[in-house]
């Protein structure tokens, strides 16, 4: 188990309601509180529509909460934070830019120094096995490679907190496993705080220090699990009895909540 650092993010009593076009009010998220310690890898699992993505957007400052507040590094979050990196479900690469230019988009937006960022981009691309692809365009890459570029882009401006919204959701099972290993490698190399949203129980347990299990709409936190396995972890771990116990318990919890 990793040492929990000082508190990085504290979200208290988050609620998010939407008004539909028919005038009905939908509660996507209800009374959710979560805190992240510096350097911690925390996953959220839950059924579709449990407000996982909404929670991430609230933390990212893209969406405003209906109630509750988010404190990041001691400051109340009211707008998007430059100290956060976001990875979306799809890679969201810009097709008119090369891989390297895509990775450097945050540097351009944040008006940071380009030269050291380029060097860092090459290092990160190497870490995810994309050396030699710098000047390719996204359309020349496979889905898994594109998503890796998206992850590198989210890290390029050295954010303190990485928010990932089902980043491997669109990939095939084999690629997902490889991506999980790549993400672990990145995490061990950088020790960012990661807030990882997934509907894969296996992925959550494999990658995390802590797994938060959520219920279906309105999204609530059902239970939290602390995952004690030492790192680096490999996929043999997933067939051990201890790992299986965690996975089973989480699955039962979700099964009691709703069909996943």
């Amino acid at each position, binding site marked *: 188990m990793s040492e929990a650092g000082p508190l990085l993010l504290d979200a208290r009593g988050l609620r998010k309601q939407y008004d539909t076009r028919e005038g009905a009010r939908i509660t996507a998220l209800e009374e959710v509180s979560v805190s992240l310690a510096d350097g911690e890898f925390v996953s959220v699992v839950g059924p579709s529509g449990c407000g996982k993505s909404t929670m991430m*957007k609230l933390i*990212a*400052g*893209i969406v405003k909460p209906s109630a509750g507040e988010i404190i990041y590094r001691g400051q109340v979050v009211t*707008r*998007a*934070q*430059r100290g*956060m990196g*976001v990875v*979306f*479900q*799809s*890679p*969201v690469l*810009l*097709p*008119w830019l090369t891989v390297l230019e895509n990775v450097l*988009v*945050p540097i*351009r*937006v*944040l008006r940071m120094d380009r030269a050291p960022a380029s060097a860092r981009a090459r290092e990160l691309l190497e870490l995810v096995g994309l050396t030699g692809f710098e000047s390719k*365009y*996204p*359309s020349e890459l*496979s*889905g898994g490679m*594109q998503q890796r570029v998206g992850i590198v882009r989210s890290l390029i401006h050295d954010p303190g907190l990485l*928010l990932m919204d089902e980043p491997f959701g*669109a990939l095939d099972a084999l690629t997902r496993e490889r991506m999980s290993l790549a993400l672990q490698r990145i995490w061990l190399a950088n020790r960012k705080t990661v807030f990882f949203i997934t509907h894969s129980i296996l992925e959550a347990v494999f990658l995390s220090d802590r797994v938060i299990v959520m219920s279906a709409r309105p999204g609530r936190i059902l239970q939290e699990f602390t995952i004690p396995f030492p790192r680096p972890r490999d996929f043999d771990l997933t067939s051990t009895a201890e790992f299986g116990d965690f996975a089973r318990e989480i699955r039962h919890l979700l099964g009691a909540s709703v069909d996943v």
Partner: protein
Amino acid sequence: MKARLREAFWLLVSAFVAIGIWQTLISLTGLPKYVLPPPGAVWHELVAGLTADPSSRASIWYQLSDTLVATLWGFLLGGVGGVSLAAVMAEFRFVQKVLFPYVVGFQSLPKVAIAPLYVIWFGYEMEPKVAMSATLAFFPVLLNAMQGFVAIERDRMELFASLDASRWQRFVMIKLPSAAPLIFAGLNLGIVYALLGAIVAEFIGAQRGVGVLITQLQSVSDTAGVFAILVVLAVAGYVLITVMRLLQKHFVFWQASDTPPDAS
């Protein structure tokens, strides 16, 4: 390469067949020359018009250059105006709410009907032609660009929102390139309409231009001459469209691939 050669071959064959039918029709029906001139007469007029002294009014080049200058200026003004207004309307909802009814109203108006007014306002030189050309080019560009600015992937906007990007950054780095394929769709229509606008203005009243030449030839029933100019205009239009396509390919090279790989 082989496929291209075969295409060119059949194109030539079909052209010969069409000209053959044309000639046969005239021989069989005895249609007078001023109704349907024989292909040979059209060819003769074409060669005469193209080889005449380029500074004389009989030269097709002399007339066409003036029409094309008006077309390009009109296209430039209409294109820049269309994209700019679309951008402003997409960025500021209020402007869109106020202006959109006028756009719809103008769009429903047969715009060539404004041409006589332009002649009154701007005279018989280049200005009314450019104005008419710009007016016709403006609307397809505006409407396509508006659609382009509105239909931007939500994920792209959220990526930039997560970086707290400024409005200007969002516009330049995301909205403009995302809208580029549709802007070009509008420009491809715009260039054709620009040529149409210039010729319409020349019909109404101008000193010089292909439209002027057509009306002059028409007044003396020189049908073969009119046909020759139509051939020239078809070629000119084809060249303009081809240039636009090449520009599009260059600037929007990613267009074919701009669909998310996991759109499923």
